[in-house]
């Protein structure tokens, strides 16, 4: 009896593996087909630019630098004559960055964002420290909802922005209390 049961269970195992043999693989064949990254994916940190002027949104407030748990962000933004900060240097070392997304949450100016991009292997360690321009370049094609308060929306981009704001209401909502608290 025991033998019969054992054989039955051994065959059951074969049946299960055999069953899978006929099924289609779940594999995503990476270089040819790619997994569509969810928009919240924290692939890489980028700097966002203004949609119209093309200039960096960053105001050099250093909030992200202070929020970074691994101190991967280095900003040099001295105050100019007009008492405003001008971003001179904005380096992120991706060899230190822990991709936690705290910088994105700290930012009040839609300047820094985690973008769903991931292909950045290099042969040289120094290439992993990205400067302002590279970060900006990477952020060019990142779509975002401009929630900065100082901007007065012009009629033209407002129409374009509408569908974008509909797609990610969930993302905007939790950001709202965050901004308030940072203004304290």
């Amino acid at each position, binding site marked *: 009896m025991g033998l019969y049961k054992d054989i039955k269970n051994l065959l059951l195992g074969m049946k299960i593996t055999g069953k899978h043999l006929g099924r289609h693989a779940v594999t995503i064949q990476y270089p040819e087909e790619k997994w569509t990254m969810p928009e919240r994916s924290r692939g890489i940190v980028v700097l966002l630019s203004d949609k119209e002027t093309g200039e960096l949104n960053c105001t050099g407030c*250093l909030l992200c*630098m*202070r929020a*970074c748990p691994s*101190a991967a962000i280095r900003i040099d933004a001295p105050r100019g004559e007009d008492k405003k900060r001008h971003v001179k240097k904005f380096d992120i070392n991706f060899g230190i960055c822990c991709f936690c997304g705290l910088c994105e949450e700290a930012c009040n100016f839609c300047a820094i964002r985690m973008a769903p991009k991931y292909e950045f292997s290099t042969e040289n360690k120094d290439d992993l420290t990205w400067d302002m321009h590279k970060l900006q370049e990477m952020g060019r094609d990142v779509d975002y909802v401009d929630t900065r308060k100082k901007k007065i929306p012009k009629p033209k981009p407002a129409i374009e922005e509408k569908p974008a704001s509909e797609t990610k209401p969930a993302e905007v909502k939790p950001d709202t209390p965050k901004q308030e608290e940072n203004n304290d």
Partner: protein
Amino acid sequence: MTRDELKAYIESNFVGRMTLLESGKVEPMYEIKADDLIEVATKLRDDLELKFDFLCNMGGVDTRERLEVIYNIASTSKLHRLDFKVILGYDSPAVESICPVWPGANWYEREMYELYGIDILNHNDLRPLLLPEDWDQGHPMRKDWDAPDFVRMPEL
């Protein structure tokens, strides 16, 4: 036992041996004298009302003023929990090993010995646990510890 019952019970049964501290936020936190540790711990474990048979956690704390050894104990049958600590000074801190009471303390004590430099008396095996075998730079978890290649987080 509920928290208040536990407090009352300990107050009546451990007079003068366990001092309630204010720092405990949720569970009661007591202080035990270093030389009284084993006896109190044994009693905590063996008392039929308490039955603290489970050592959750223990470790050293450096508060910049003194060293402490914290013990978090629980009971798997009575489902209550308790914290206590032993307060030590900076010069030659030492505490009795509580492995005879809770054998699970073994590695925690080894870890404490190497990271905080708190000597464990009557512990039979104080080999380094976490640090490299050839470590000679002192006790890194102390607040004033420093080493040539130790990079502090920049104040931003």
